[in-house]
């Protein structure tokens, strides 16, 4: 790599005003925390990054870390998961604020789920309109009045955060049904350590690989098994599911069975797995499918998927379900507007993380105002997740906006509108190996068992197309490894202490060659 190449990486990097770039100052110099990283990136150069990219694709294909993309005409092909090789760096201080804000939010959401299915105090206080709750498509009447072990509903949560141009973090969406992506957090880290270990050089990046143990611990903590070690299973809809890789990954990492509906049966309000040794009881289920498909007796009657009687077992308290049934009511996009109120009402605290300004369209005045400004707003369907049905006003053409206008007018309660957030950017490796700014969001993951644990890391999703604000992997987004740095500098990192009694030196083979034994004759000279 010549010196010309070395300078090219940094020199061609221009942050896109007015968006905040997380590694570079507006003038194109690296931010303090990124100096060493940028130095290493320069050393690697475009060729080095492209070479590492090729190795990444080969490794991901080998390990089957892929996703399906449809190539039109019904054909689909596997592509390696697009991990960008430039990590995103968060300081310990920034992380602590996010973490506290997230824990606060999840605690409030959990309270809300409990409240909605029991006393409805927040409704009686007039803070959340009941009709809004009741019209949520994920409001689960079947689990009304059921309180799971420990009062925990949202065992696994992931909130989507974005960073505004002023540097503040805002929550854009909550995910307390079946948030996915944690496997990529772990796999991204492992791949980065393998592909570009030099980037870690002078950083002290906090580990994320204990997540499966945290999850398993939380599931065991809420599992109703007094006498023995609780049996935990991961329930997947099957290999056809786009997130099957993650389901298998988590089951393998936790060392528990990955089950499908046909492996489960409920007898007398107790859930069992069918094994070669007969029925064996399952105490906790980490389920990775929607409420609609878990129990045909209680939810969608037209679906014969699922495990008949599971809700019965859940109601009887013989099995813990993570996340609990009916949590979808808390991450509905219309309910999202009320989360700051929930935090004040249930916890008596001020929210640490702000919402993005959101417009509820059930109010005719707001509706009118929003319909006038559709081209400046983001419109989202309330009951969907994963970026489905989202329209970004500034990026939509006239026809799209008109289509959306008609949809909203037909059923205003099913939509919300939000201000456009100026998503921050992070340098990203382009096809020619140079770095270009691309928009990112952040999805940290929390585990709620006996307490709330948040792994120091997150899925950073990146929009790979220039100027695009859509980061969902199903719509052409990629991801980045997210580094949360340890506090303190490199110097106070002493190695761990070593045990007192140490093993002996390694034995080695020694040939039994003949060794001569002779005595040298020494005789002093008498003369001197």
């Amino acid at each position, binding site marked *: 790599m010549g010196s010309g190449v070395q300078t090219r990486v940094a020199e061609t990097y221009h942050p896109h005003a007015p968006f905040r770039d997380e590694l570079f100052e507006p003038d194109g110099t690296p931010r303090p925390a990124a100096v060493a990283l940028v130095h290493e990136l320069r050393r690697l150069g475009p060729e080095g990054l492209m070479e590492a990219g090729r190795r990444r694709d080969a490794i991901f294909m080998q390990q089957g870390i892929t996703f399906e993309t449809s190539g039109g005409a019904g054909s689909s092909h596997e592509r390696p998961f697009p991990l960008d090789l430039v990590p995103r760096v968060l300081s310990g201080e920034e992380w602590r604020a996010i973490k506290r804000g997230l824990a606060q939010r999840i605690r409030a959401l959990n309270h809300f789920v409990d409240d909605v299915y029991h006393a409805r105090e927040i409704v009686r206080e007039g803070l959340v309109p009941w009709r809004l709750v009741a019209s949520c498509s994920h409001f689960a009447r079947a689990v009304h009045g059921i309180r799971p072990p420990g009062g925990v509903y949202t065992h696994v949560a992931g909130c989507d955060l974005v960073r505004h141009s002023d540097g503040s973090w805002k929550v854009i969406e909550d995910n307390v049904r079946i948030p996915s992506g944690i496997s990529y957090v772990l796999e991204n880290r492992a791949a980065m350590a393998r592909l570009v270990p030099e980037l870690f050089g002078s950083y002290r990046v906090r580990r994320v690989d204990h997540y499966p143990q945290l999850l398993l611990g939380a599931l065991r903590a809420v599992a109703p098994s007094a006498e023995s070690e609780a049996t935990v299973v991961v329930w997947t809809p099957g290999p056809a599911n786009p997130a099957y890789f993650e389901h298998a990954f988590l089951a393998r990492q936790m060392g528990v069975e990955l089950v499908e509906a046909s492996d489960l049966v409920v007898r007398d309000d107790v859930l069992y797995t069918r094994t070669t040794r007969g029925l064996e009881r399952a105490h906790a289920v980490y389920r990775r499918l929607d409420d609609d498909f878990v129990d045909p007796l209680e939810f969608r009657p037209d679906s*014969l998927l699922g495990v008949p009687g599971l809700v019965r077992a859940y109601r009887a308290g013989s099995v813990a379900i993570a996340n609990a049934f009916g949590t979808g009511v808390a991450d509905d996009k219309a309910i999202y507007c009320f989360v700051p109120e929930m935090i004040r009402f249930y916890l008596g605290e001020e929210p640490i993380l702000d919402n993005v300004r959101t417009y509820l369209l059930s109010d005719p005045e707001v509706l009118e105002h929003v319909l006038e400004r559709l081209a400046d707003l983001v419109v989202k369907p309330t009951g969907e997740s994963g970026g489905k049905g989202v329209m970004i006003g500034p990026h939509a053409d006239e026809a799209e906006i008109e289509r959306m206008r008609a949809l909203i007018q*037909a059923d205003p309660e099913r939509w919300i509108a939000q201000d456009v957030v100026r998503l921050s950017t992070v340098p990203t490796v382009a096809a020619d190996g140079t770095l270009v700014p691309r928009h990112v969001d952040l999805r940290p993951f929390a585990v709620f068992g006996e307490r709330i644990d948040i792994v120091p890391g997150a899925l950073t999703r990146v929009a790979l197309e220039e100027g695009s604000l859509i980061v969902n992997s199903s719509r052409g987004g990629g991801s980045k490894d997210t580094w949360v740095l340890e506090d303190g500098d490199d110097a106070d990192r002493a190695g761990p202490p070593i045990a007192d009694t140490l093993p002996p030196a390694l034995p080695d083979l020694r040939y039994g060659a003949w060794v001569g034994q002779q005595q040298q004759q020494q005789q002093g000279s008498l003369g001197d």
Partner: protein
Amino acid sequence: MHFAIRYLTDYEYDAPVTDNLNALRVRPATTSTQRCDEFHTRIEPEARVSRYLDYFGTEVLEFGITMAHERMTIDVRARVVTSPHPDPPEGSWESLRSGAYIDAAGEFALPWQDQPPLTGLEELERALDADSPLETLQLLCEVVPERFEYRPGATYVGSSVSDLLELRAGVCQDFAHLSLVLLRRRGIAARYVSGYLWAAPADEGTDSVEVDTHAWLEALLPSSDGGGEPVWVGADPTNRKLADETYVKIGHGRFYADVPPVKGLYLGGANSELMAAVTMSRLDPQTSARA
């Protein structure tokens, strides 16, 4: 009135089945105008029955038969006393917008989600124009059976309102569903009711009839002076009248799927044949009923 109700269901399977899980919503409710005095269930093959109150307050009986069987019987007996319903209130259309009304209406005023958009309702709606919500409700009980034919077998349990609109025929479940849609479009909260109906010929001294489970609806009508509590009033668009003491309510919901009398499924490739019969008998002297 005093009734004895027997609801007998018999499933016969052409091959053994296992894991037969069922949920029953069959117990008469206790309300201001009816009281359930006795209630028994017998399941064969024998099964442990557990009960709970669902979201809408209906008692649900659940049981599961694990071992292989080729026949299942559900035998339900109940005794109920009903009393005449008070006169329905005649509150104004304006009262529908009061806070008390909106609170009481809750989710029963919301449009029915997950339904395909309905067309051709305008003419029906025009026919329901009236001076008060009560009058609209009464008109509804005339208009629906006039425009649609009551024809068992025309629709099935999962039929939608648009099926009814297309076929111009259906059963009580479909009539109730259509009525709910029409009322809610007018801003009147309405809910689906499942129950039993004493369908004896009015002038005969019959003391026992073979009936079926029945469906009607309840509409929330504002109180006459507009200031008091709104009242749920039963109405039966199949039999062209408001509900009275011949109606025995089991429970209510937003629509059929919230209060199905029997819901179940089993494991196995067998076909089943269903035999269901509801027998209602009057226990009090006939004279008092006619008086």
